[in-house]
């Protein structure tokens, strides 16, 4: 079933891609092929491959249970927040929060998570910023 849904999604993606490719504005100065042809070929391959996947599905993969799925979605939300808040909070605080969360969800005790989160953040800061001179995001406190 997963492969059938995936294949149908792929076909729709290919159709969308083909439409987006047809919408490319041609420049008045163009080579013999133009900017549309290759994307259209790709859309065709994408569509054919997806149709083949939908018609001849593989055995069903093992999907995680609802709880595990929520776990992954929560992690995605945390990483998106991390990406957005990095320039706001600065590297050390944002990284300590994000890595603390991840290690907690992977099974560290709450207290250990705080320590590991801070440790991860500070050691990356020390190695990459202080030692190697890489520019990291600076927050309101300058770190």
């Amino acid at each position, binding site marked *: 079933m997963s492969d059938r849904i995936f294949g149908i999604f792929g076909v729709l993606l290919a159709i969308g891609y083909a439409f987006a490719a047809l919408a490319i504005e041609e420049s008045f100065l163009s080579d013999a*092929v133009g900017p549309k042809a*290759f994307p259209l070929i790709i859309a065709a391959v*994408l569509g054919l*491959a997806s149709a083949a996947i939908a018609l001849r599905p593989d055995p069903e993969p093992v999907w995680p249970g609802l709880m595990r799925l929520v776990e992954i979605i929560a992690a995605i939300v945390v990483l998106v927040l991390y990406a957005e808040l990095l320039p706001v909070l600065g590297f050390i605080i944002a*990284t300590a929060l*994000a890595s603390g969360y991840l290690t907690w969800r*992977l099974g*560290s005790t709450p207290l250990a998570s705080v320590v590991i989160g801070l440790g991860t953040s500070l050691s*990356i800061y020390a190695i990459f910023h202080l030692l190697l001179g890489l*520019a990291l995001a600076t927050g309101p406190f300058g770190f």
Partner: protein
Amino acid sequence: MDTLTSLADGFAIAITWQNLSLALLGCLLGTIMGALPGLGPSNGVAILIPLAFTLGLGATPSLILLTSVYYGAMYGGRISSILLNIPGDEPAMMTCLDGYPMAQKGMAGEALSLSGIASFVGSFLATWGLILLAPQLVKIALLFGPAEYFALFTLAFATLGGVSSTNQAKSAFAAALGLGLAMIGVDTQTGVPRLTFGEVHLYDGIDFLVAIVGLFALSEVFIFLEHRHGESDAAHRKIVIGRLWPPLSMIRQSFGAMLRASGLGFLAGVLPGAGASLGAFLSYSVEKKVSDRNGTFGKGDPRGVAAPEAGNNAAAGGALVPMLALGVPGSGTTAVLLAVLLSLNITPGPLLFTRNPDVVWGLIAALFIANIMLLALNIPMVGLFTRVLMVPPRILMPVVAMVSFVGIYGISGSSFDLLVMVGFGVMGWALRKLDVPLVPIILGTLLGNAMESNMRRAITISDGDWSALVASPLSIALWAIALAGFVLPIVVGKLVKTRMLGARRTEQAEEMDVTD
């Protein structure tokens, strides 16, 4: 003679204090990454590319660092195969078969150092193979025009799934997805924006480094979260190493195995669609046919450790041949190394050898240096590397995620790229669950623009005649190989795959019978 002078020049470039210390650092990091389950050569190198890039290292130093990581990871994969019966990376799977039984017999140290020697022999011979074969391939590649290149790119995609691929539709899907992503951005030939949907951030296209780090490194974090696999596999086991140096008789006994396996592995690495895993598999099965007279294979025969290790390291060297000479990688890790070259503004291919001989020969010299360092590091310090197995993923995986973010943020300093990377991480997780290979996606994003411009150039030269793509005998031959490479796995793929897995299962079943 020419070759030797060039090689000497290469050593002159590679031997500086900075380069030697980078090689040492790369070897250490690589071995650790190879040993850790969940980090292999591809994602290890992937995480480090943006870092090497943002640190402002030049072309040759970055290449030295990253190829040392690559070779190091090939060495490191065997450690957890032998000690824990869990392959550190996919090519090390066959090393479990005899390595783990040896460890159970209390010969872990011997197995580790013997496989270290085998890895050295494999890589050493393969590097010589690279030196001898790559310039010959360059001579052929110089005959290629745009139409032939277009056919060659197609060939690379068609065979990337490999002979053990079970679902070619999924490989084709992945390749088309990668190529499709590469099209995003301003068209280089006419200057019109394509598929950007008005988003200014997309005008430059999607940075392939963002895609690689997201797909390889972040998706791994999600996999670990899904299984809540936070504790180390080595946590409750007692690891006894024993003596560190194998008896000379054992080396002598398995030396033939190493030589045979190096040859086979190298071939598997050079040929499109084979790669290191198949190299290891072939080496092991052939060695078993040749030497297994008393039925000792699978029960801790040293030759069964030496053969696959020599084989997969030789394949790693062999895979560099098409990558450097043609600019078309045949495996996941060489695709990542191609990304390194492209981000340094070096285009691999036949012209690389004439235009940037310093890069090519510096790299080859670096391979020799890394190899010797790895042998020197791996035998006395193997005890230290086994400690690495104790690091639990609950600490390791957040570090992997955060270092990925640091690298990508270092390149662009924009949150937008970080969001795109998270998106690729999620996509990588879902595609892995659906058994869609990720390497064609990477290769597509890397080669998409070159592939398109070769096609357009070929057709423009012939004034809009599309049959120009199949006009020369050379391109027809390439198309024929591409077609065969795509169709063959549909016929034999299942068979090869079941054999590879089956070999592992029957050996383990037999081993159970013995220990019970």
